[in-house]
């Protein structure tokens, strides 16, 4: 996969436990612990299989969680991607 896509941060090695739409996530590499929502976890699980472009992420997520066709989901996913970068879970495309 091209390194220009969205990828999990190098070394990211999560353990996690979810309850009611929220997940407590521990990165064994950094030692950081976070709470993320279901959408963030869906993105993390997608990217665990390999790097993806934003378009690919959006397409797969929309299928995965069965989003209503009328909803503009781009900004929602973009916001989660930015949040995950801030938590050092994802690497921005280069």
């Amino acid at each position, binding site marked *: 996969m091209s390194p220009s896509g969205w990828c999990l941060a190098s070394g990211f090695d999560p*353990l996690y436990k979810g*309850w009611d739409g929220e997940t407590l996530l521990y990165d064994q590499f950094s*030692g950081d612990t976070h709470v993320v929502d279901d959408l963030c976890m869906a993105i993390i699980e997608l990217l665990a299989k390999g790097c993806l472009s934003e378009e690919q992420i959006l397409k797969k997520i929309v299928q995965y969680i069965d989003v209503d066709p009328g909803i503009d989901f781009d900004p929602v996913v973009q916001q989660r991607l930015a949040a995950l970068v801030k938590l050092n879970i994802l690497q921005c495309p280069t």
Partner: protein
Amino acid sequence: MPHVTPLNSLSFARFSSQLAGAGVAFSVGPFVVSLKSSITSVAEGVYQLYGEYPLIAGGADRFVDYYLALEQSQGLRRWHRPQVKFSYDGLHPFKPLPLNQALPLFEWGLNWCVASQMHSYLLIHAAVIERNGVAIILPAPPGSGKSTLCAGLVSRGWRLFSDEMAIISMADGQVVPCPRPIGLKNESIQIMRDYEPQAVISRASLDTIKGTVALMKAPSDSIRRAAETARVGGIIFPRYQTNAEALMTVRSKAQTGLYLADNSFNYSVTGARGFNMLAEVVDGAACLEFTYSRLDDAVRIFDALEWSA
């Protein structure tokens, strides 16, 4: 049940002489402390608050977890604003404090020893109480009324595990009791004197970093049952709010886990084991927030909690 000789089986004269000499060893929950001090207020305070704790007989072969000493600073400090020094295995991890803070310094120093050493346990800054084999963890930031609530509940039949630290075994997730004196601050001291007139409360230390501080002796039953562990049934965040009606509400489990991780003394050094244990504890516990203004309301609501082991 092994026969236990309490520390106060020694006369005060013999205790204070031994304390000033070779030191006195006693067990406090899962560990053994050896304390040396020739300071009268320390002898009086420890005898008053720890008198019912198991005395560990002398001899070079006895096992001690922490060798502690509280001694008065020497030199000119003996006469001008006298100070007390805390030492652990001969090291001085803290700056000296005014002599009138010797007893709280013992408690703070012991907290530091436990928090920095006992990594076979997950250690979380919280009070813990128990009833019917179910432990309730009360984590809370300073000023939330945690210690006052804890003192109130243990004065009305709840068993004290700790006012300061949840000690969770990494082996089986059981909470281990470490019933030590409850640290009361400022107005909480008088509140507890009024609420439980029978409570044994130490002389107050003024002008500490936490304000006026006094220590309330752990209930005798809690000291006697210090070997009885319990599973965690609830994690309840108390919040004192003037004139508030008592109210218990559900709290997010993930956020509860994050708070506990942030307020653990050793989560960062326990790695994956610590996370897995934390997740297991949160998963099995009811996570709640409790707002209150009156201790009687709090006792009534906690008494009505229906959990069984």
